[in-house]
């Protein structure tokens, strides 16, 4: 089926609809700039919509993110493309031409009413990526409760073609033969808000991540702590038991040259402390231990947050974890060495362990594709003026927001996004012709 290419012109193309991409798009759109926002996942919201609460205020993450998601989706100056990949961006004559592929959801969006009857009827259960494998979804499903847009996506690779979804759909909007669509965007400036990923769970095989059921990633723990998490509470994936002893292993993916991540990821200490405090609230009799090298609590209110955690009974042990094994009941056993004189290696058993994984770029310029900006030595985008104008990249007119340039917490990512929006606005005022009758 041949599909015609949609052509769009915009002031700014924003790549990535996590919290930084959302904020940059809103700031520009509120200034009257037209924005095309492209997100590769089926919903906007990025990693932040996956979190339970934020540090150090313990505000609900969803309550901060969802209004921004809704504003973006309904803003007259923003064209939103989800489940879409930017194949490439080229600069010519001072403008940027981007080629985008909108992948098929296998439903007709203009007819879908988001009733979820297709999801209820589907008989194929799969691991839910929103819950990081802890929960289940169907082969056709709306990505999560407050996803925007509220359309389901059919996983064509796992669909068994039973037709139950098509029979259940009241508007008959399922289209099993839907093809990808091409979109071309002509933009005056580009903001890259490509975000981050966590280091892989199995990057350090000696920690058993991905192999032992009760060794979790921090995002899995976020889902367990979330009000609508997969289990309805904090439980062990191996058997549904409420844990009475939980450990955090700090620097499990950062500050390690052997992983190619020699830098500090800046957020791991604080998210571990935040989760420890939330666990203390939801499991008051549980022992929570954080094994750390240094605690880096550098932001406003962070040191007080750390002291509050200690006062709440969270135990901080300055020790290096050498390896993790498990017993026959899937209890993780940590071999540790305390950094105190006169102590030797010892083994400590816990019910559940969280590996404080580090941050790596979700898109590396070295992967190619997207646009030919330069990478820094850490793999994140290089800013030629990190201290004076961190939104700049090595291409004039291309700006970076959020964790695209390096690990950041949410506060810094949002501030950074505002700076990128301002820089893009200034660039447009300097380079793009002003419509007749308008003052520059």
């Amino acid at each position: 089926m041949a599909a015609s290419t949609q052509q769009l012109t915009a002031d700014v193309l924003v790549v990535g609809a996590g919290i930084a991409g959302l904020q940059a798009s809103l700031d520009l759109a509120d200034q009257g700039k037209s924005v095309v926002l492209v997100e590769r996942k089926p919903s906007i919201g990025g990693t932040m919509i996956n979190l339970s609460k934020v540090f150090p205020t313990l505000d609900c993450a969803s309550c901060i993110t969802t209004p921004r998601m809704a504003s973006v989706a309904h803003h007259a100056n923003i064209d939103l493309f989800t489940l879409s990949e930017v194949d490439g961006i080229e600069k010519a004559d001072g403008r940027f031409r981007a080629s985008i592929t909108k992948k098929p959801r296998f439903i007709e969006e203009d007819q879908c009413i988001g009733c979820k009857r297709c999801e209820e009827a589907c008989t194929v259960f799969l691991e839910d990526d929103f819950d990081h494998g802890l929960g289940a979804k169907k082969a056709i499903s709306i990505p999560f409760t407050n996803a925007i847009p509220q359309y389901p996506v059919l996983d064509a690779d796992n669909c068994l073609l039973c037709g139950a979804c098509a029979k259940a759909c009241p508007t008959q909007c399922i289209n099993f033969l839907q093809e990808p669509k091409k979109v071309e965007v002509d933009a005056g400036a580009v903001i890259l808000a490509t975000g981050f990923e966590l280091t892989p769970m199995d990057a350090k095989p000696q920690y058993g991540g991905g192999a032992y059921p009760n060794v979790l990633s921090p995002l899995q723990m976020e889902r367990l702590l979330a009000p609508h998490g997969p289990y309805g509470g904090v439980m062990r994936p191996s058997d549904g038991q409420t844990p009475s002893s939980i450990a955090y292993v700090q620097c499990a993916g950062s500050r390690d040259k052997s992983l190619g991540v020699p830098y500090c990821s800046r957020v791991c200490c604080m998210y571990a402390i935040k989760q420890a405090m939330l666990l203390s609230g939801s499991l008051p009799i549980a022992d929570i231990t954080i094994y750390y090298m240094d605690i880096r609590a550098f932001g406003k209110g962070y040191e007080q947050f750390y002291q509050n955690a200690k006062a709440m009974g969270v135990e901080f042990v300055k020790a290096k974890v050498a390896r993790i094994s498990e017993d026959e009941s899937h209890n993780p056993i940590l071999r540790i060495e305390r950094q105190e004189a006169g102590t030797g290696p010892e083994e400590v058993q816990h019910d559940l362990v969280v590996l404080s994984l580090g941050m790596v770029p979700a898109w590396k310029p070295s992967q190619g594709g997207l646009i030919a900006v330069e990478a820094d030595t850490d793999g994140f985008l290089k800013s030629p003026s990190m201290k004076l104008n961190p939104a700049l990249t090595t291409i004039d007119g291309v700006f970076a927001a959020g964790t695209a340039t390096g690990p950041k917490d949410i506060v810094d990512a949002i501030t950074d996004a505002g700076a990128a929006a301002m820089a893009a606005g200034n660039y447009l005022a300097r380079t793009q012709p002003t419509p007749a009758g308008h003052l520059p």
Partner: protein
Amino acid sequence: MSESEQQGSERKGNYALEQLKQLRARRGAGTPAQIERSKRGKEMQNLILKAIADEAKTVPEIAAETGLPEQDVFWWITALRKYSRVQDEMKRGDFVPYRKK
């Protein structure tokens, strides 16, 4: 829904079923591994639902009764709970008992 809307809807429904026929002819209804996984999943769901049909049970109790691994039982309980086939009961010690809805 008016009669003409109903007819339009039925036409579109038939269109989707036609598409399915084409796809089944082109690639079959899933790989043998997918079909086997789906069959095994249905068997596990049935065993679990049967075990908790009359009485709420914890994951270790269901695993002991059905012979399924505890981890698999818990994953299926989570799946069935999400789609309202199973409900939680009052916590018993460190475990939540589950009952078929």
